[in-house]
């Protein structure tokens, strides 16, 4: 079934049924796409995709679009959105805070439930979106499952890694980096914003998300979870292993499924053609399908 599905996804599928739209979140107009399933069932959960920030939003957008279509093809409704200051939504990226991202995720979940007539949500979160989705889930009680695609575990680490990648990319282009990560962070404090891979890192987002902690936000979560590690390494990373055991500790009956994808993209650089992983989509859809069927 999934092979057949994958053949249609991203090719001549019936994406004409996708419903792109604008919806409101705290006075701002956000862009979203509703994927109404062709096989509507009785009160099925809706999958809500929570994207990463800045340039990573662009890198993962293709993956999320294909993922949402695959879930829709499998028989569940899905919803994608652009948070304020991102993509086609209203707002300025310089005003985006961790709080506003969470507000938008909550508004998107409400909108998705309304459109799908669903009473529960399956969160599918990519990278930094994991921190956002986890915080949104903590403030609601309608999540029935969680999918984490290469989650960011701490806001602080995310920004440091991004800056480190910037320095590495300069070396790769035969440039000698004229700064260190520490100096870049000092510059960010002073200038309020620094240039980063064709976009900016703003102090407002940095400060507001610095203390973001995935494990802490998921401290009360005890639902089915699919943890996808998209890294070249063979073993589960220490952070992912820690998160898995932390969630499983909450409830002995819960097993966090782990999927490892070795084809790791450069999240902070937009590749041409865009990054796509058929394995990731197939396995995610399979997991969600198994969950809903059972």
């Amino acid at each position, binding site marked *: 079934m999934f092979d057949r599905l994958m053949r249609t996804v*991203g*090719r*001549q*599928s019936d*994406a*004409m049924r*996708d419903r*792109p*739209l*604008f919806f409101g979140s705290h006075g701002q*107009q956000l*862009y979203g*796409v509703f994927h109404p399933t062709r096989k509507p069932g009785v009160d099925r959960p809706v999958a809500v995709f929570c994207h990463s920030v800045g340039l990573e939003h*662009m890198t993962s*957008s*293709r993956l999320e*679009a294909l993922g949402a279509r695959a879930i829709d093809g499998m028989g569940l409704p899905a919803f994608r959105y652009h948070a304020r200051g*991102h*993509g*086609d939504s*209203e*707002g*300025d*990226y*310089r005003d985006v805070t961790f709080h506003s991202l969470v507000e938008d995720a909550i508004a998107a979940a409400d909108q998705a439930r309304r459109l799908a007539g669903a009473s529960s949500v399956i969160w599918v979160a990519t990278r930094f979106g994991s921190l956002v989705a986890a915080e949104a889930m903590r403030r609601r009680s309608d999540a029935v499952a969680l999918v984490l695609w290469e989650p960011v575990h701490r806001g602080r680490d995310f920004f440091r890694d991004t800056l480190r990648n910037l320095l590495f990319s300069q070396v*790769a*282009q035969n440039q000698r980096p004229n700064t260190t990560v520490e100096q870049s962070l000092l510059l960010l404090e002073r200038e309020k914003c620094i*240039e980063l*891979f*064709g*976009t*900016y890192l703003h102090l407002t987002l940095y400060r507001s998300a610095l203390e973001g902690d995935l494990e802490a936000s998921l401290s009360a979560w005890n639902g089915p979870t699919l943890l996808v590690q998209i890294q070249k390494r063979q073993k589960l990373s220490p952070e992912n292993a820690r998160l898995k055991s932390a969630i499983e500790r909450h409830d002995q009956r819960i097993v966090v499924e782990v999927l490892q994808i070795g084809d790791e993209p450069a999240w902070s650089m*937009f590749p*041409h*053609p*865009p990054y*796509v992983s058929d394995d990731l989509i197939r396995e995610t859809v399979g997991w969600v399908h198994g969950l809903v069927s059972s």
Partner: protein
Amino acid sequence: MDWSQASAQLEREHAERPVVIPGPQGALFGIFTSPAPNVPPAGKSVILFGRNRWQRDRMGVDTARLLAQRGFSCLRFDYHGYGESEGPNTVMRTKKPWRDQAVAVIRFLRETMGLDRFVVSGFCFDGLTALSAFQSEWHSIDGLVFIAAPVLADTLQPIQFRYVGRARNFSEKIQVFLKLPVAQKLRIVEQTMRRCSERTSAVVRPALLAIAKGEEELRLSPAFRKSFAALARSRARALFLYGIDDNEYREFQVAERTLFAKLDSETCARLEIEIWPGQLHVPQATGVQRQILTRTVNWIETLHPSYEFLSSQRLSASNL
């Protein structure tokens, strides 16, 4: 230019609507921004080509909203295989711009929205795609902004990093190769030789032809030559923008020496070439990209039928 969210720009955000366009390989997803009602309409729709439609610090989004404030309707969309659009993930080749998608978008705007005059704009490969639309739609396009695009068949671009990366793993690959069964080894050798010969002929043949015929023009990619000819026979104005230190500018100089040199004075006057100091082909340099888009917006505005009136009005408003 103030790129922050002014109130007029916010109004244009609210005037946006998503569109789904039937493309050659499935649906293309885009956003249409309608022109501000309080300025005289330009009667032209600007198509902003990009990968994907909000790339580079959402400059395409800001550009669409700014142009809409100045009376132009705008469309930005994702190519097939990018963002939300359907279709396969194809590697882009500057020698083969995605003309069929450009034309599909123009026809969609014409057939579903009744728009009949267009302006096309793009950076690098997107510029080539924008230019390629002239091949079929030269009669309906009034303007082109063509930024830092490579135009030669045998491109002068430096070796790309991915090739360096592949070469770095060469010894590892050889070891793997040696462990393969003989039949598989032969198949790989055959494939590699075929690929090498295809690539060599694609690069060397046009250069040899050019040398043999003594025509430098043949070094330009056939797609560029064909599209340029269509642009020349249209009545459209065009802005070609390069940085003096761009490798792409070295390629474009071949076009200047050959194609541009053959144009009559009337056509020459329509096609402006602007060379900026430094490099423009630096997608990661946000400041430079903002300057390019500011120039793009200001240049497109000159295509407005009431441009003189609007600019004098703006000038008097700023003097107040």
